[in-house]
């Protein structure tokens, strides 16, 4: 690890000012950043520790929505009653985080902003891992990489919570030198075109304040396919959220995780749902529809299947909750 300075601001304004310094990087739970610094994949001259910003920690239930502070730990999310009842898909996602240590330290904001787990990136070959005009995951070993093309990036978005939150229609609140802004969470994620671009829409000096989630899509589920039961990264994940009115499904959102450089929102899911009469056929069709247009690599064709399976099972699980 290279030497760095450390600061612990007490207010958001203080933090933003400190982050204006060249080479400054925000530090939350540190479960990802510290490893990146240690392996010299990323560098920082100043770590701005956000853990002193207690106002950004916690879950608040408001009339129409849930407010989730960026510094809320995964464990706090797991145990917050309002998050468990209003956001079942998020509860699924957090429960799949099988490391108590990471749940205790890792934060919501950190989950959204963590860097890709791509082994080429983590070996120091750059975010896009391009060498001699070719993509290393494509030409080398891409067994855990993207099955959907979105620009030159072949890594998969690492966020475990984003599919569930996006399915629930979350917005993210940001603050930076030029003030506060909010964006739909799905637009917060990007597919970078260059090594020095980020995979999230954070402008220089900006931090995540909170995620706000409407309560209307109450029936939801996330299903992840893991190689093993212990701490692991999903091969595929799917989140499904339903909104009902008078017993009828009026909105259906399906989001895929770990299959593309960004969480992938399935457009037209409601049409597919409505076109079928039984739950089984709906799940089957949505599973098939979700991987239309997938362009897997030689090494990760299997992920097309695990993705379909994740969608089918998330649909079924969400519907079970609706029935219950």
């Amino acid at each position, binding site marked *: 690890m290279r030497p760095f300075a450390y600061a612990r601001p007490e207010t958001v304004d203080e933090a933003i000012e400190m982050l204006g310094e060249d080479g400054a990087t925000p530090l939350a739970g540190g479960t990802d950043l510290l490893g990146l610094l240690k392996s010299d994949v990323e560098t920082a001259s100043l770590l701005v520790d956000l853990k002193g910003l207690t106002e950004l920690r916690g879950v608040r239930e408001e009339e129409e929505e849930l407010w989730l502070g960026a510094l809320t730990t995964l464990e706090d999310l797991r145990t917050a009653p309002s998050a468990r009842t209003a956001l079942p898909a998020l509860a699924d996602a957090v429960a799949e985080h099988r490391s108590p240590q990471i749940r205790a330290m890792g934060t919501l904001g950190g989950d959204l902003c963590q860097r890709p787990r791509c082994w080429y990136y983590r070996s120091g070959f750059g975010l896009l891992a391009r060498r001699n005009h070719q993509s290393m995951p494509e030409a080398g070993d891409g067994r*855990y990489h993207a099955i959907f093309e979105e620009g030159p990036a072949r890594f998969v978005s690492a966020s475990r919570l984003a599919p569930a939150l996006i399915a629930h229609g979350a917005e993210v609140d940001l603050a930076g030198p030029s003030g506060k802004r909010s964006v739909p969470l799905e637009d917060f994620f990007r597919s970078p075109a260059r090594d020095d671009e980020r995979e999230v829409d954070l402008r220089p000096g900006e931090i995540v304040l909170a995620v706000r989630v409407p309560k209307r899509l109450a029936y939801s589920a996330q299903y992840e396919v893991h190689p093993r039961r212990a701490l692991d990264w999903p091969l595929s994940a799917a989140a499904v959220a339903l909104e009902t009115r008078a017993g009828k499904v009026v909105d259906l959102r399906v989001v895929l995780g770990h299959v593309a450089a960004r969480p992938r929102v399935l457009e037209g899911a409601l049409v597919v749902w409505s076109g079928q009469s039984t739950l089984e056929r709906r799940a089957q069709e949505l599973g098939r529809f979700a991987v239309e247009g997938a362009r897997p690599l030689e*090494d990760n*064709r299997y992920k097309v299947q695990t993705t379909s399976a994740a969608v089918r099972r998330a649909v079924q699980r969400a519907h079970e909750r609706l029935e219950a």
Partner: protein
Amino acid sequence: MARYDWPDLSKARHLSGTASRLDGPVKVTGRAEYATDKAPAGMLHAAMLWCPHAHAVIQRLDVAAAEALAGVEAIYVIQGEGARVQWAHDEIVAVAAVTEQIARDAVRAIEVEYEVLPHFVDEENVGEAPSARPGEEASEGNVEEAFAAADVVVDSRLGMPQIAHLCLEPHGQVVEWNEDLTACTVWASTQAVSTMPSQIAEGLAVRGVNVKPADVRVLTDYMGGGFGAKFGPDRWGIVCALLARQAKKPVRLFLERDQEVAVSGSRPSAYGRVRVGAKEDGELVAWDSETWGSGGLPGTGATPVPYVFNVPNLRRRHLSVPTNRTGSKAWRAPNHPQACFLTMTALDDVAAKLAMDPVKLFRRNLGLVSRFADVYDEQLEIASNKIGWQDRWRPRTERDEGPVQRGLGVSLHTWGGRGHRSNCEVVLHPDGSIEARIGTQDLGTGTRSVVATVVAETFGVGLTDVEVKMGDSRFPQSGPSGGSSTVGGVTGSSRRASQDVVAELFERVAGTVEQSSEDLALRDGWVVHGERRLLSLSEAAALTGTGISAVGRNPGPGQLGDSGVAGVQMAEVLVDVETGVVTMARMVAVQDCGLVVNRKLAESQMHGGMIMGIGYALYEELVSDPLSGRILNPDMEFYRIASLMDVGELDVHLMSGPGHDERGVIGLGEPPVISPGAAISNAVANAIGVRVPYLPITPQRVLDALHAAEKRA
């Protein structure tokens, strides 16, 4: 002279008991000091520059900027300009500095330029290997005729990749020299305390430093795993000693996790095309295999197939394939897991083709086994009963309802496990306290508790009444802990030493108690004659004046140990055919190992082997990047091992009693790790109806195998 034997187990106080390991409390409370924990005053920290290329020549190397950094106290160039580096992560320069941070800064300050050369790391595609050397070939009987006469022939392509040892305590040591640089102390994480001093002296001599082995003291109080990868000081151990000498300060050098995974040791890969012919009734009549594999640059020796079953007409060829990866080291049961996997999966496929229960096929062919046919037969029976094979096994062609398919698989294995050469000194002090001193090491298997068990049993005292001192090269020499040889070695030497001391004690006190020494015994801290207590052990010891000591040896007189074991394992898995995820439901292991010294420790070692086996069956693989030649998963994130959440229920049955106990002690380290690859692969094939040809059996491989089968159909 004493008669050397084991006591009648029905009267034993400790032997074959279930006492917990003596070092449990200090380990779980963090008080046990491992080599990684040692920090003598003034200690420097070392870091190493490693090569990022799998094959390269060092064109320019400049350490001036590193040398100039404040806090850097020693630099050693391991490979200089002009050197050809043959694998990624190989060490180039080592730096010792006052803090770990400065050592790392110094490593980053080193300027190095490489000429990158072509590499080869993909031995699965042996046809593309730039070089491959034919290995041992064997041919017996008339192979083609036997195949022609066979009722069924299977032709399988199978394989398992190179894997790491993944010791939780990485390789390394702390070295401290005396003031005039004539002697050093090495706190090392090693499986070979007694032989390390001469290995270190030899390594130093090559680099122009002469020191007598007697002046190198190696200490290993506790150890965080070796599995065969820690028999020598390795180059970094010698380099650490050189840095400490240069700096005249103690130096700590331990590998980082990435190096530990990538280059500290590995098990060679094994691939093969295997053809097996059998008669309709399951009789195996022909074997033909072409195997190949790589243990890095040196390639690899022949895989000893067919395993256990000596198929009468056989032809066997092998190719040793050098790759640009680090050389392999002995990995728990060298060669056996590979040979077992290539054989038992092919035989399981024969059974499937004959629509025959594989247990029946194995039993039908026990005549081809050179030893232990009756033991295997009994073990197959016991294992079948435990897992409910007769009722629950169904042929591969049948499916369960829903996406999750249940499958059962079986495999069998063999191992030697004779005790190694060992010396143990046992001292009865005049105050009655008992001390055992032995130059062995406890890898985590419970060796300390095993020696205490034997000595306490012999003296008729409690386990904690014996002070066992080990892990010091100044103690009587005992062999390296490899090949399941330790338990047989240390029990032999400590029993003989203890029996000698006790015999001498009886002779010395016989006059005082007015009994013949042959009629005396030790029980619960007393010298007894029949039921009568004559003297307490401390009174007796006081009578000797000086106390008594003796060095016992292994091998030696008396049947205290033996060699050769058989084992059977059965696995039950759940395979989700939509996601490809394999879940372990249950694993049954039936094993003979002669006399069980401590049942709890023995079962614990079985569990460890089975868990390690589940790891390589389902998760473990060193992934080599075809582009850069680097290991892509030198971490514990994508180099997966089985955690306790992943292993399902483990059910161990150790065979003991008449026919086993009188053989004496036999090692148990290797046997349980041999069969899991084959047993689990067979269970998966039974579950889903097709063979997943390669380990580890990942969701990718399961789904690809199902997809390929669908296409064929």
